């Protein structure tokens, strides 16, 4: 099975959720975490994570600071802000609605019948 191409905007949501779940994390950690959780199904150029991070930071949803990792390596650590949590809740709701709708549309039978909403 080939890997999934990420839809526009989904990476931002994944990053927010990862930071919300795991607290402060550096870029590599976030990327690896997403890969692990997805069971390596996502086609992630790890480099694109940094574009996502700068975008989220500019919007004020995450904050960053330089720190030292467990194995004593200098790295930039990101954490989610209050505004980021709000945004995450909102985006997650939206995403769940969308997937719900997609499920129903795709479950539609040949006669146009489907599970009622």
């Amino acid at each position: 099975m080939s890997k999934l191409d990420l839809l526009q905007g989904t990476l931002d949501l994944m990053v927010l959720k990862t930071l919300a779940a795991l607290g402060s994390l550096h870029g590599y950690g976030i990327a690896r975490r997403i890969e692990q959780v997805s069971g390596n199904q996502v086609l992630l150029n790890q480099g694109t994570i940094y574009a996502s991070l700068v975008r989220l930071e500019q919007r004020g949803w995450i904050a960053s600071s330089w720190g030292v990792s467990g194995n004593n390596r200098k790295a930039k650590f990101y954490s989610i802000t209050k505004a980021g949590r709000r945004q995450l809740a909102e985006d997650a709701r939206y995403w769940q609605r969308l997937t719900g709708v997609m499920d129903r549309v795709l479950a539609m039978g040949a006669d146009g019948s489907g599970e009622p909403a």
Partner: protein
Amino acid sequence: MSWRLPRRVGAFFTRRHLDRELEDELASHLEFAIEENLERGMTPEEARRAALASLGGMTQAREKHREARGFMTFDIFLQDLKYTLRTLNRDRGFAAVAILILALGIGANVAVFSVVNTLLLRPLPFPDAQQLVWIAPPPTKCGLSCATYSTDAYDEFRAGSRSYQDVTGYFAFSGADNLSLDVNGTPIPATSIDVVANFFQVLGVHPAMGRLFTPDDARDGAAPTILLSDAWWRRQFAADPNIVGKTFDMNGRQTTVIGVLPASFDFGAVFSPGSKVDAITPLDLYGPPRDWGNIITFIGRLKPGVTLAQARQDAAAVAPTMCWNNKQPQSCGSYKDQVVPVPLKDYVSGRLRRSLVVLWSAVGMILLIACVNLSNLLLARATARQREFAMRTALGASRGRIMGQLLTESLALSCAGAVLGLGLAYVLLFWLAHQGSIALPLLSTLRIDGAALAWTVFIAIAAAVLFGLVPGLRMAGGNLHESLKDSGQGRRHERVRAVLVVTEVALACVLLVGAGLLLRSFVRVLDVDLGFQPERAAAVKVDYDDSAPTFAARVQKRSAILQQLLARVSAIPGVEAAGISDYLPLGQNRAWGTPFPKGVRPPDKVPAGPLVYVVTPGYLRAMGTRLRGRDFTWDDGPNSDNVVLISRGYARFLASYAHWPNDDAVGHIITNGGADLRVIGIVDDVHEENVEGDPGWQIYYSALQQSPTGAQLVIRSTLPPATLANSVLHVLRELNPKQPAAEFRPIQTFVDHANSPRRFFMLLVASFAGLGLFLAALGIYGVISYSVTRQTQEIGIRMALGATMGRVQRQVLGGTLRLAIAGIALGAVASVAAAKLIASLLFATSPWDVATYAAMVVMLLAVAVVAGYLPARRASRIDPMVALRAN
């Protein structure tokens, strides 16, 4: 997301720092990945390769990061700009030609915009200038004489009107050099204007130094005071900072300088274009001017909120109560319907609106031609660069990116052109602002201001888009495979270029026709029979003192002085005729009522009277004005019959009421306010007010029977008048040591001055047309030359198959002419439409003047042939062998 914008802007300015941070982040990212891979048991080399692979390319990560943090476009723009400057530097010839063309087009536009802005768009240089109105009768043919009011009328109007904060005015009949400043015994001539004391308060002008006039300064018998213009203060008084309060001998009276006017105030620029005014003096409303009749122009400042329509109504209500002279009840009501306020701005520059709009359109067309030319040049260049762009597309550049690159190039060119053009405009405007002799208002205030700069930026960008768009779309939309295969899209481009050239020729055609029509009008104006012959005649202002207690004694003294003076001047070798008049044609003027045939009841509505000239014997001959009947003699004095000469037009008017044999006025008596005047001769109608209008009516009185206002000595010579200047001035000085060093002015300068606005517009439009023609020629040459280059092989084959050189040449020239003829045909149609627009600017020339159109066609064809001949010659010299081997 707008609140993200500041951070994005910030990101642009801190991009170095952000880049460095990203580098650090990516480095640590790699280290984490390598470490993890090593733990999984990879070799160091494998670990590194796998880490890089999962990162997905450093460069891409960087690009994405920059894109996300914002202003990628600006980054790209800077990149494109760098690239543009490199390519243009490589192709310097192209860059130079393109920038020069744009500089000419933009420079002309900025200069004309400044003129239009100064004359039409910008308010007059006074605070709340929109409140200022000029109050005058509806336009008539007697000019300022009919635009003025008496002092009694002024008082009544000022008291009776409710629309104005205040009303002021100035004495309309001051001549040039009416002031003589005595500097250590040497009289220096200067020009001053008498104004009503509240003049500057109404206009809202504050002195740069000292104070303004108060009503006391204008009181009868007040000590003489004067305000200096900034220019005169600098020139004559060496910008003396302590000048206020000093007194000088002016016109023989100790006059106190009470202040210096600001440099921004130029009386001539606003109220009497093309003349300089050195100083302002207060007008004594209640002294002698009371009996001078209509002498004051009215200028009012409306109360805030009062509309022009309200002011008009108000004026119409007040007018019937105004008297020409309060002591003559029958003169009351004579101003009915003769008092109409118009915005001062309209009075100053309203007449020029049409001319300026035409001028503006002309430069607009120049810019269009320049843009078309640039489009053409860029297309030719783009064709040569086709493979470069195809390569970039193949390497992944998007269409937008290539478009952006091309527009950046256009923008860089047009900005360079704009900078150079701004320089050209600055030089042109500086020159124009110092052309004191052009009778256009406000010219001296011309400068490049904020509005002009904004306009420059606007047209630079507009031009860049205009000329960059077509080649940009062409290139970016090109077919990748075609270009890489080098079969090219030459032919398709060529069609576009041909259309562009036809457009260009058509535009040039319209400009040429416009310029041609204006030129022809100008020539016609020069041919107008003025009623006098300006060639070889010159005038100089003469000072003499005829003061005496009684009128008879004054006349006696004057007669002696003038006779001696004219005898001496006539004796100068080369002087053919000499005479004196107080006023000259095309200068200031006045009217003294409307004399009517004796014994005939005048109609209820008598038209405004003839303009008055008080002259000596010989004046008409010196001016070259033809006379039927007899001239004045020195015997036409106070003790003989009062005699007059009248103009032919006025004689015809009088004859239509009188029952004279053969309708001939000569020998008959006309009366003016009870005084009998015998008509002794009929003279030619003289253009006294302007060259282009119909001549008005004139009446000439003898200088020994009326009181002349000053004296202008006119001499007619067999030599160029200027050569006599010294000997004439020498004679005048001998007779009167107080004679100022007045200017010796050829009569032609009066005519030139009157014609200067037409000359100015004609010259500008003609030079724009010349520029347009040149650009069109360049365009034709470019296209034909390029098409010859492209067809080298084809031509080579045809020559190998036996085509002669002549045939090849003819073919190329034929192609050129086809383009030119298409352009001319299109242009001729457009010209007919445009000519209608300028019809009102033409003089004795039809907007469909066949000769002009024919000349335009011939000129354009000739230019096209020349432009096509060079490539044709090159085509005919093609060596078939070389051409065929080339590919």
